[in-house]
């Protein structure tokens, strides 16, 4: 997608003659430059995986979280400009707190997605503001309604998915994900698959090192969004590395 806006791309408040809002498209490009983020919705929950690209040996492991909890029962994984992501996640938390204060129940995912989509869309209609350069993947699970996964892109559009990928390796990731029989897999199985996909789409040449961040929400966690426990994380990482070795690549070391 390398077309020049030629004058119609200076503000989000303008359409181009062929009906595009370039600022929104550029925001989507910003997301595509970020490390891959994937989310898989299985039988009993949702698993998130993030390829956190590391640019320096001085980086502290475990810092700079890419998966966030909203209100405890919703997980959010972000791709794109991380400072914009921070703003969107904070807004999501405010919306969730406000809903809980008014209705005395945790916010359903649909309601949160609507509110957040509305919020992100607001920034795409005024010339004085720029859109968020963020795609956010939201997932939840509860006893009654089971798992749900939604993605909101910089235009404010929300879509529901069984498997979703954003960021650098999204095309390859999507191909990998389509091979999986998601609705029949449990979270425990999916954790391994998520790790495998991230490892397989990671570009060794362009981005040497990366840290894998895995989180989940489902029956295993009783509806709370958490980072995957260390032992399951290690298992998943080993599985992914072995799968990678089978396809003749160097071991990706952290």
């Amino acid at each position, binding site marked *: 997608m390398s077309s020049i806006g030629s004058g119609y791309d200076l503000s989000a408040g303008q359409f181009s003659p062929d009906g595009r809002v370039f600022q929104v498209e550029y925001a989507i490009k910003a997301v595509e430059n970020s490390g891959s983020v994937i989310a898989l919705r299985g039988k009993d929950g949702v698993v998130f995986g993030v390829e956190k690209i590391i640019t320096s040996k001085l980086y502290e492991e475990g810092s700079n979280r890419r998966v*966030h909890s909203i*209100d405890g029962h919703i997980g959010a994984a972000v791709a794109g400009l991380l400072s914009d992501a921070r703003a969107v996640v904070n807004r999501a938390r405010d919306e969730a707190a406000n809903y*809980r*204060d008014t209705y005395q129940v945790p916010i359903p995912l649909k309601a949160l997605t609507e509110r957040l989509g509305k919020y992100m869309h607001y920034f795409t209609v005024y010339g004085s503001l720029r859109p968020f350069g963020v795609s956010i993947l939201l997932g939840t699970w509860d006893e009654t309604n089971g798992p749900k996964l939604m993605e909101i892109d910089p235009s404010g559009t929300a879509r529901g998915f069984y498997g979703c990928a954003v960021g650098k390796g999204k095309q390859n990731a999507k191909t990998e994900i389509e091979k999986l029989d998601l609705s029949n897999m449990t979270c425990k199985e999916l954790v391994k698959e998520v790790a495998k996909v991230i490892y397989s789409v990671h570009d060794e040449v362009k981005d040497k090192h990366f840290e894998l961040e895995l989180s989940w929400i489902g029956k295993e966690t009783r509806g709370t969004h958490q980072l995957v426990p260390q032992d399951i994380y290690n298992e998943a990482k080993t599985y992914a590395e072995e799968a990678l070795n089978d396809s003749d690549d160097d071991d990706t070391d952290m």
Partner: protein
Amino acid sequence: MAGMYSTHMHLPRMVDMKEKVAEFWQEEAALSGPRKHTLQPIVTGTSVLGIMCTDGVVIAADTLGSYGSLARFRDISRLMKVNDSTIIGGFGDYADFQFIMKLLEQQTIDDDVVGDGVYRDAPSIHNWLRCVLYNRRSKMNPLWNTIVVAGRDYSGKPYLGYVDKIGVSFTDKSVATGFGSYIAQPMMRKAMEENPNMNVEEGKRLMARCLKVLFYRDCRSLNRFQIGVVTGADSSISEPISAETDWSIGANPSGYE
């Protein structure tokens, strides 16, 4: 007097303050429209008791919401588990306590989502409550409660605090609100004097005894109560229990023939 305030500063003039106070009371007296300042509690909870033991803190309260002299809501919880390190108990207006519970619930969620396993400890929550309550009293619109904060601090030491609607705040080895401070507090103090190294099991038995006496003596109490315990590891509130009572001595009290 006027000379002191002759410059244009942020300090209000004495005369203005007097006018404000007069306005306030006139407005209340006129009773025109909805009241904007709390003047009386409506549904109320009675005593909350707290005692610090060597291995934890015990807190107790009955499950009654009184509507004046009517024992109206007999299955409400006046103890709230804020997080694994703190339980609070509310005396006074129940609606104001529900408001406080809602705010604290949101605080715990905010702590949760940071994801580092660190939660506000009992002294922090106690201090926060003091700020809120004192601030409201200073606006002449109090939250009509006395709150007992039972828990532990970050180092694991047991903590027991008291904060009331006028912002008075302190910590002690045993605390009680309302009728409890007249009837249960002496009992708790005596028990602690005789057994300075009480553990939570003994503490729970002491609480049950105190609540029984309160049921005999406090007209706004109920023989159905919960006991909450905060240990070094976590906090929990029991299911409602009742005490065995013997009213036989009440059959023919002297002077009531």
